[in-house]
């Protein structure tokens, strides 16, 4: 049984159709990379999966259960679906440790000590255990994003969503975040990533999804798609991304 199954999703903003009959399944342990031009609906798709956006038609089934509508049930579900945003969105008034322990202590009602143990574990996973007591403003963008990943990991989600998490970073900081992502991907986590890092997508993803005009335009193993795109849209997109200066 797939962990996540999207079937015939449609989403409009006013008269503009953002997602048009999108269907997609994600198996446990699968790493899915979603690529496409800006405005192709990638980010909206991701936000629909954990209910930050509502869908107009179609169904989203997570772990065998349809995505609930009511707020409390949706919160329950979000404990199992972590999301990391493009702009990190750490809480600037809390230390790194408190950023990470908020979810476990407030939502999961764990004792603080236990949550602090988890904080240290997840910080180790992203290589920042020495920043436990730092504040977000004292960290570089790359470090902030790694803390944001740790914060999501601390809830032990069954599915992780990543929304263009390297796009706001200075080029020299992208590498450290991609390295963390690769480690997570190879450790058997189920992940859906919207990304512009083609090298990462090619190396690490099990499945590549190319979105165009709100539709899943092409889907398959990344090496095949990169080597032999079936549509001219994907072909021109790959060319534009790999040779941006031509």
């Amino acid at each position: 049984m797939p962990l996540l199954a999207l079937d015939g999703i449609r989403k409009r903003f006013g008269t503009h159709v953002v997602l048009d009959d999108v269907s997609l399944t994600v198996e446990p342990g699968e790493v899915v990379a979603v690529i496409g031009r800006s405005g192709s609906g990638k980010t909206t798709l991701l936000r629909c999966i954990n209910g930050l956006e509502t869908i107009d038609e179609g169904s989203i089934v997570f772990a065998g259960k349809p995505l609930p509508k009511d707020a409390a049930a949706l919160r329950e579900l979000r404990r199992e679906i972590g999301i990391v945003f493009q702009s990190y969105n750490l809480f600037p008034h809390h230390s790194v440790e408190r950023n990470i322990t908020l979810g476990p202590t407030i939502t999961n009602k764990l004792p603080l000590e236990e949550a602090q143990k988890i904080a240290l574990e997840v910080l180790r996973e992203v290589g920042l255990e020495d920043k436990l007591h730092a504040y977000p403003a004292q960290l570089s963008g790359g470090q902030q994003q790694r803390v944001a990943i740790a914060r999501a990991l601390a809830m032990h989600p069954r599915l992780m969503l990543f929304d263009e998490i390297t796009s706001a970073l200075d080029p020299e900081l992208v590498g450290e975040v991609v390295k963390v992502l690769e480690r997570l991907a190879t450790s058997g986590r189920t992940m859906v990533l919207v990304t512009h890092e083609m090298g990462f997508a090619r190396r690490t993803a099990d499945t590549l999804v190319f979105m165009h005009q709100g539709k899943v335009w092409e889907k398959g193993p990344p090496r095949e798609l990169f080597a032999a795109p079936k549509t001219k849209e994907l072909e021109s997109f790959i060319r534009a991304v790999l040779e941006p200066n031509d």
Partner: protein
Amino acid sequence: MSRDFDWPEFLFVLGAVRWTVLLSLIAFVGGGIGGLILAIMRTSSIRALRWISAAYIGLIQSTPLLMQLFLVFYGLAVISGVRIDPWPAVTLAFTMYAAAFLGEIWRGAIQAIPRQQWEAAAALPLAPAAQLMHVILPQAFRIAIPPTVGFLVQLIKGTSIASIIGFVELTRAGQLMVNVTFQPMIVYPVVAALYFALCWPMSMLALRLERRIDAALGIRRHT
């Protein structure tokens, strides 16, 4: 026979400072509680709550404080059937007034927090009350400190209006001393100086807090 504005008269005026301070404090604390509720209502996702709080704030902000004071004073008298003590009237009127203004100041502070902070909190997933308590309000609080202190200064000066219904605070005490000394050009400067002594340090405090917050946020201003 008139007497001079001497030590006993000065001490009478000075003593009245405590009523100005007490009234300001009650209005600030009561108005603070009301203002917090109003600010949360104003930023709520429930339309009726937004509407009720906007109507209340609009009503208070668009009518003179003096009219509100009269309406509460005579209103309470009509309801209770007796001429009442000015105390409950002034505390109630000033509390209602402060709640509206603080509510509006704090609404602005809450709305200044980027939407992504709400989203990140909702993704954790914190419940709405926990989002406010742990993520939004602590940040909004810092933004709100300077304008809140600024309003407190306005409030302290504004309590002089309570003198009109016979509440003896600093201004009323001054009037009483003018009535017995016929020396308004001595008494009122003293009264004004006492207001200044209360308000100026607070204005300075507000300015310093503002600079500190600007510095923390990395903003530089020419002053």
